[in-house]
Every structure is written in C-alpha cells, then in structure tokens.
C-alpha cells in the first residue's frame, strides 16, 4: 500500500482509536485511487498526528478551524478530495460554529469527528461529549447535566439540514463495528466525489489514557455505555450505497 507509511510507528497511546481511524482512511484512499489528489486538514489534538502516517498532502489548521481551511482548499481545487480529521474537543467545542455553517451551506467536503468524549491530548478534560457522571480533571465529581449540560448530539443537530449529503455516527468498539465504520466512511467519501454536498461522520472512539481505563475495558465501555447515549446510526445517505 502506497498511502500508508508502515515504517512509522504510531505515536498514539496503546489501544487508542485514532490508529483504527487512520488505517481505515489510508485503506479507502488507496482503494479509491485518491492519493494524488487528497488533502487532509487536521485539527489540534491527538488526531493532529493522523497525516504523519500517510503519503498524502496535509494542512494543520488552528484549533477548531479545519473546516474553513478545507473549504478554502476545496474552492481553490474543486476536483481534489479533502477531508478534515478532528477530535470532539476540536470539532464540537471550539469548532462547532464552523461545522454547523459548513453543513448548512452544503460545502462539498468530508468531516471526520473522532469522538472520544474528552480532550485527549491535554489530559482528558471534559469535552461537550463527556457522558453524565463521567469524571475528568475538569469535572472531578462527574459531569452534571445541571452544571455542564448534556452530551452534545452533534450528528443529530445536522439531520434537518438540506446541505448534508451523508451523515452517520459510527464506532470502532468491535471488529464488526470497525467493518461497518469503513463502509460508512466510504459513503461519506463518495458523497464528496459525486459532488452531492457536505458529508460528516462521527466515529465513537476510546481514549483509554484519558478515561483511566484498561484498553479492553475502554472498548467495552464504548460498545455499551457510550452507544446507549450516542447510538451508532446512519442519519442521511443521499449516495444510496450500502453502508
């Protein structure tokens, strides 16, 4: 595989879901022959290392600003393929406004939000996606809905927007879900290639370090507790393919 740089070991913690997402992206870029015209725009956070392991063009945007950078790239080079790779802190917190307006405008880019429920890189602090009663350094007694609000259902927020061509919440919790995630991601890429509009995938992913959990336990939490609140679901598919 030309896209993936196998000689470079991932810098992520053992068990980190970012590695699975990077592999799926590299496989899809390779299988769809997109490498020569792909640009990945990464956000700030652990996901910001994503492009280090691939032979593709990449841009590193300021925190939360991958979507405007990707929008500019796509306007300049409309036949190229551009996707953003952002954490939930980057995409759903500081970058939420950019996300909502790009979706509403139907900007033909693909946004991948790796949702691990915390600010991984800075030490596992509460993000908009942290679950109720989950403890983090910034909510040491657990997230409290009255004080901090409920986990933000970012995918659901876009389901009424006409500009959105593909919208799904995926997960890497089990091998079956990883296979399903690849299919969903393939549909999102296709939505952009067929110029159908904005495409968004939220990928539920573990941060064993930030969650203070053993790796296997973190995948089980992802499959059960996280998916109960944030269900794996395809909301919009204007591509019409199997996913």
């Amino acid at each position, binding site marked *: 595989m030309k896209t993936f740089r196998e000689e470079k*070991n991932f810098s992520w913690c053992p068990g980190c879901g970012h590695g699975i997402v990077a592999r799926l992206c590299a496989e899809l870029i390779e299988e769809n022959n997109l490498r020569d015209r792909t640009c990945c725009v990464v956000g700030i956070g652990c996901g910001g290392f994503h492009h280090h392991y691939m032979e593709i063009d990449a841009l590193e945007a300021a925190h939360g600003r991958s979507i405007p950078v990707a929008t500019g790239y796509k306007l300049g080079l409309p036949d190229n393929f551009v996707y953003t790779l952002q954490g939930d802190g980057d995409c759903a917190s500081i970058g939420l406004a950019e996300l909502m307006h790009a979706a509403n405008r139907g900007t033909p880019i693909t946004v991948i939000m790796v949702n691990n429920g915390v600010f991984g890189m800075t030490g596992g602090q509460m993000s908009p996606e942290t679950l109720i009663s989950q403890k983090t350094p910034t909510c040491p007694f657990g997230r409290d809905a009255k004080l901090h609000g409920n986990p933000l259902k970012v995918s659901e927020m876009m389901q009424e927007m006409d500009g959105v061509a593909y919208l799904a919440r995926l997960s*890497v919790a089990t091998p079956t879900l990883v296979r399903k995630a690849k299919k969903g991601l393939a549909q999102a890429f296709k939505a952009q290639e067929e110029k159908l509009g904005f495409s968004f995938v939220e990928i539920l992913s573990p941060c064993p370090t930030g969650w203070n959990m053993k*790796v296997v336990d973190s995948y089980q939490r992802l499959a059960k507790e996280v998916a109960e609140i944030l269900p794996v679901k395809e909301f919009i598919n204007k591509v019409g393919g199997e996913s």
Partner: protein
Amino acid sequence: MKKNKTLVINSARCKACGLCIHFCPKKALSLCGEFNDMGYNFVQSDQELCVKCNTCGTICPDVVLKVVED
C-alpha cells in the same frame, strides 16, 4: 484452488494492548516473553489454532496484524 493464507505480525509496531487477544475467536494469540524496540512484549500467534479470519487485523489500533493471501 484454495488460496494459502498467512497471518503476518509486524511485531515492531505492537503496543501489547491486548485487543486482538480479547477478540480472537480461536484464542490463537498471546503476548510473548520478548520485547520490541518500543519496550512492549509483543503479540505472537499459534498458527495451528489461527483460522485466518483477520478479526485481529480489523481491531488492532497499530496495524500490526494482517492476513495475506498468496
């Protein structure tokens, strides 16, 4: 003709997270007593038990495992 499949392990990349061991339906994987350059006691397989289903390769977060056909 039946294709010959092999499970290839790039042990230099393994971080001994244990996910592949947990998900392997045949209990064909285990951590070995040796360490790679990153200091992890990497995964080894029992090729007799392995049915080359690639479940481990699907979940491995570090692209260590791959079933290849020849």
